[in-house]
């Protein structure tokens, strides 16, 4: 089965671990991920002022391409991409003025077929026909946890793992409608389904410092430390993320965090897709563990799954 998948810029460059492990995991579930032809960066930030309409053009162009290719669903894994695509899609569905203005930009796009060199133009207006889903939602609602459990070949044996949501998946809740903003559980449910024990801790939806890690590294170090310490104090042996920027802040900053906060001794940071891929029997070489600063080998036990969980 084919499924449209929007990887986003970071997954093709610095954080290939998330891309590769997602593809391998989905292949084990008989789903082939297809990228929309000619996709571009989504812009990373949803434009928050009423006048920055142009920021909607890139995500909507990608969504329109999914529709042109006959897709009615697109999945993403990066929290930033998910947030931008989903909010832009909702703006197009709900706001007639934005819909009109964005379509006026995009109507005259020219697309050149890479093989036939044929030029296409005069696209039909995009009115929000495509559904934007996070892979976690797709796994829960379309694939279903029972089907994932059937395919599990390695047993995490109830390894305590913390799910870290961060900011973009959950908020603003009216637009994202991903899960309850104060007590989300979709990520925990996923971890339980693949054989881990989800750790409950108070900082799971706090901010890791986001892009301030470039302009104000100390503030991001402190914010990331608070998240990591909270997870560790609650007994987690690893923390899982969906966002390459959360990964950067929590993983790549750990050397700095350890130097600044002597009570902290390190915690492996993983993508949810690496957990899924490993449980489904994907080779360790295909998890992209080379991109981690904090060694994560200890998390991946070789214990085979002896019985099919129900």
């Amino acid at each position, binding site marked *: 089965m084919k499924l449209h998948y929007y990887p986003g810029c970071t997954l093709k460059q*610095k954080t290939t671990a998330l891309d590769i492990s997602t593809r391998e995991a989905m292949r084990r579930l008989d789903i082939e991920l297809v990228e929309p032809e000619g996709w571009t960066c989504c812009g990373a930030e949803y434009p928050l002022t009423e006048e920055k309409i142009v920021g909607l053009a890139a995500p909507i162009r990608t969504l329109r391409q999914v529709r042109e290719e006959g897709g009615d669903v697109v999945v993403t894994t990066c929290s930033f991409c998910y947030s931008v695509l989903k909010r832009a899609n909702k703006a197009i569905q709900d706001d007639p003025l934005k819909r009109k203005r964005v379509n006026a930009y995009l109507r005259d796009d020219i697309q050149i077929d890479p093989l036939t060199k044929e030029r296409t133009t005069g696209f039909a207006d995009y009115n929000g026909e495509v559904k934007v889903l996070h892979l976690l939602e797709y796994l829960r609602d379309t694939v279903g946890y029972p089907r994932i459990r059937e395919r599990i070949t390695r047993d995490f044996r109830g390894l305590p793992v913390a799910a870290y949501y961060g900011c973009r998946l959950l908020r603003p*809740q009216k637009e994202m409608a991903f899960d309850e903003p104060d007590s989300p559980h979709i990520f925990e449910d996923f971890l339980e389904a693949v054989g881990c024990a989800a750790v409950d801790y108070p900082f799971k939806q706090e*901010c890791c*410092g*986001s892009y*301030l890690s470039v302009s104000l590294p100390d503030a991001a170090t402190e914010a990331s430390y608070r998240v990591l310490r909270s997870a560790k104090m609650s007994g987690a042996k690893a923390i899982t993320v969906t966002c390459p920027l959360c990964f950067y802040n929590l993983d790549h900053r750990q050397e700095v965090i350890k130097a600044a906060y002597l009570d902290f001794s390190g915690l492996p940071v993983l993508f949810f897709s690496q957990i899924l891929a490993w449980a489904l029997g994907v080779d360790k070489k295909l998890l992209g563990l080379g991109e981690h600063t904090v060694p994560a080998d200890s998390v991946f036990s070789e214990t085979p799954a002896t019985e099919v969980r129900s």
Partner: protein
Amino acid sequence: MRVKLKAGRDKRKFIERIEELSGENVFACYQCGRCSAGCPMASEMDLLPNQIIRLVQMGLEEEVLRSKTLFLCASCFTCESRCPKGIDMARVMEAVRHILDPKGKDAFGPGEISPELAKELPQQVMVSIFRKFAK
């Protein structure tokens, strides 16, 4: 000392512009302070989010525009999720950044990232910080 509690007619333009850009009603705020209580960057700020919105209500444009707070907001929307009046404070912050002098210096521009750091950073962080803090 006389304390002015209401914006004069001359300040209306600034307030209306913020409301127009953000799409938020800043006068809905009754200063409960939940936005500031939940803000992960509050400890770094010179003006707290609720103080920013109070200054906007009073039309004190200069005080708002020179605050460091504008460039400490990570748009994590914690304030938005906690506001009992449904104000999206991140949008108000963005509206204030939008009206800063377009010819002024970037709060954070591409020149401030060293080539070594650029090699290590994920692409999305560079895209997002320039979208937020550069002109």
